[in-house]
């Protein structure tokens, strides 16, 4: 464990600490930083685009995290059956995560095209007139949420790995005791995978608040800042407006928010997360 910590300190915590210090400076990367105290933090509280981006990131996370968890779990349950060809389906659902960001962005711009993008074509097939997704202030964010759900394969895989670890005997015993499908699910499955649910929830929150590539490449923060994620906002300040110090300040505000939420989830974990190795009565 020791070497890992050392390496971690050097390669990760070191730059993190540096960025923290930089948040109190005026830094354009090109030349050396100049100390300016809390000026960046003051500035961000007064910038309406900061609050806009906070709002966008918050809405996105609140919607996509629970939705993602539910769908991923559902898929994992679905694909946990011993069935011929189940491997094919698993590959299909995992496939979206395999495409690199560059290709995905182009793809989604086509798919969400208002007139002949497949999404709207399908909607038209059932009689609904789809919106002009990426250019509509309300629907652009929805489009990004849909795009994120397409890539749910990773979360699904982790749930699947968790499901694989549940011993068949438990289900058989429950069946003998007369427990129905739902009872089996809520009393066996859910608790037994709570350790992965916990993981997916924590990482889901952390990840959703830092989503960058999709927002940056598909909508560019538009239209009219409707999809201006915090990560896009700070990237712009860091590398386009040469306000790296300011971007660092924004990043650390985001950090505190994420940290707070994560600690919340951790604190609540004894209530619902179950670890086999910590069964009561054991040394």
């Amino acid at each position, binding site marked *: 464990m020791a070497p890992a910590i050392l390496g*971690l300190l050097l390669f990760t915590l070191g730059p993190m600490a540096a960025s923290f210090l930089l948040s109190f400076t005026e830094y354009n990367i090109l030349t050396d930083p100049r100390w300016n105290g809390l000026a960046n933090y003051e500035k961000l509280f007064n910038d309406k685009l900061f609050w806009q981006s906070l709002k966008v990131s918050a809405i996105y996370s609140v919607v996509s995290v629970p939705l993602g968890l539910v769908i991923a779990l559902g898929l994992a349950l679905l694909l946990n059956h011993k069935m011929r060809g189940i491997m094919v389906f698993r590959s299909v659902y995992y496939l979206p995560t395999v495409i690199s960001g560059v290709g995905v962005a182009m793809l989604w711009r086509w798919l969400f095209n208002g007139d002949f993008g497949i999404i709207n074509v399908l909607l038209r097939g059932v009689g609904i007139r789809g919106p002009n997704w990426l250019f509509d202030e309300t629907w652009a964010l929805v489009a990004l949420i849909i795009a994120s759900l397409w890539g749910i394969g990773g979360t699904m895989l982790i749930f699947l790995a968790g499901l694989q670890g549940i011993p068949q005997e438990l289900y058989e015993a429950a069946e003998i005791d007369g427990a129905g499908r739902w009872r089996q699910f809520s009393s066996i499955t859910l608790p037994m995978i709570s350790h992965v649910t916990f993981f997916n929830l924590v990482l889901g929150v952390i990840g959703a608040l830092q989503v960058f590539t999709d927002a940056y490449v598909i909508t560019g923060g538009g239209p009219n800042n409707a999809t201006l994620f915090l990560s896009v906002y700070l990237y712009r300040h860091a590398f386009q407006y040469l306000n790296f110090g300011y971007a660092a300040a924004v990043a650390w505000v985001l950090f505190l928010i994420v940290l707070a939420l994560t600690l919340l989830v951790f604190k609540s974990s004894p209530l619902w997360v179950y670890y086999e*190795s910590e069964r009561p009565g054991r040394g």
Partner: protein
Amino acid sequence: MGVRSAALPFWRTRRGQARLTSLAVLIIALAGSTLVLIPFFWMVSTSLKQASEVYLSPPVWFPNPPQWGNYVQAVTRVPFHLYAWNTTIIVGLVTIGTLFSCSLSAYGFARLAAPGKNFIFMLLLSTLMLPGAVTLAPTYLLFNALGWVGSFLPLIVPAYFGSAFFIFLLRQFYLTIPRELEEAATIDGANVYQIWWRIMMPLSYPVLATVVVFTFVGTYNDFFTPLIYLSDESKRTIAVALSYFQGSPRIGPQMHLLMAAVTISIVPPLILFIIAQRYFVRGIVMTGIKG
């Protein structure tokens, strides 16, 4: 077949139930798959178009004749074999490093009692919470001071020190393994490393397979880090090569070639995933514990 109880219709029997479930699973999975595969279909379809067909409206679904030559172009325009080799080296080394360092660290977090362990774990997790954009400059300057800019080192070495994401994941799994096994092994005189290698690792094949797949895909698709540290054309990776197909702000991409390149690039991770599926075998964890 044998005589079944006349009172139970087929769909109430155990076999019937199983069959029905399988059928239901099949239908739902199929429906979902179609939705998921539509973008891919579009991708492949575009990759087979001529340049002038790409922007047609209403769109062309089945280009005729299909331009298989696009694939040849995509691969020969750039030294693809060189990029593939570079990618193999980087991805291979990173995956191995991640697998070993993370599982070892995760074991430590799950089992070993050390002062301030929880604090360090939180510290570890916190490394995931800061957007990468603002650590980019300090990290680059660090690697520059070490003289590693321009080599593969900044991409490979950090993997050998662990990644918070996987350490967390593996820790979760290790916490589910009952202590009896290790207690027995310790009595037999095994040390920490032996327990880790002989017991913990084999018991967690599904999650290890997951780690391998994730690391592979993540490193394979990472174009940003190589672009920041490597500028030599001879050191490019496949993901980097893809990003060169996208044109520039004023000059759009050659969509048909880009899609062909993307389609080709999907193949290696897909193959890996299919291989990794073999490790998703149910029940390995608990068998052998009882009694």
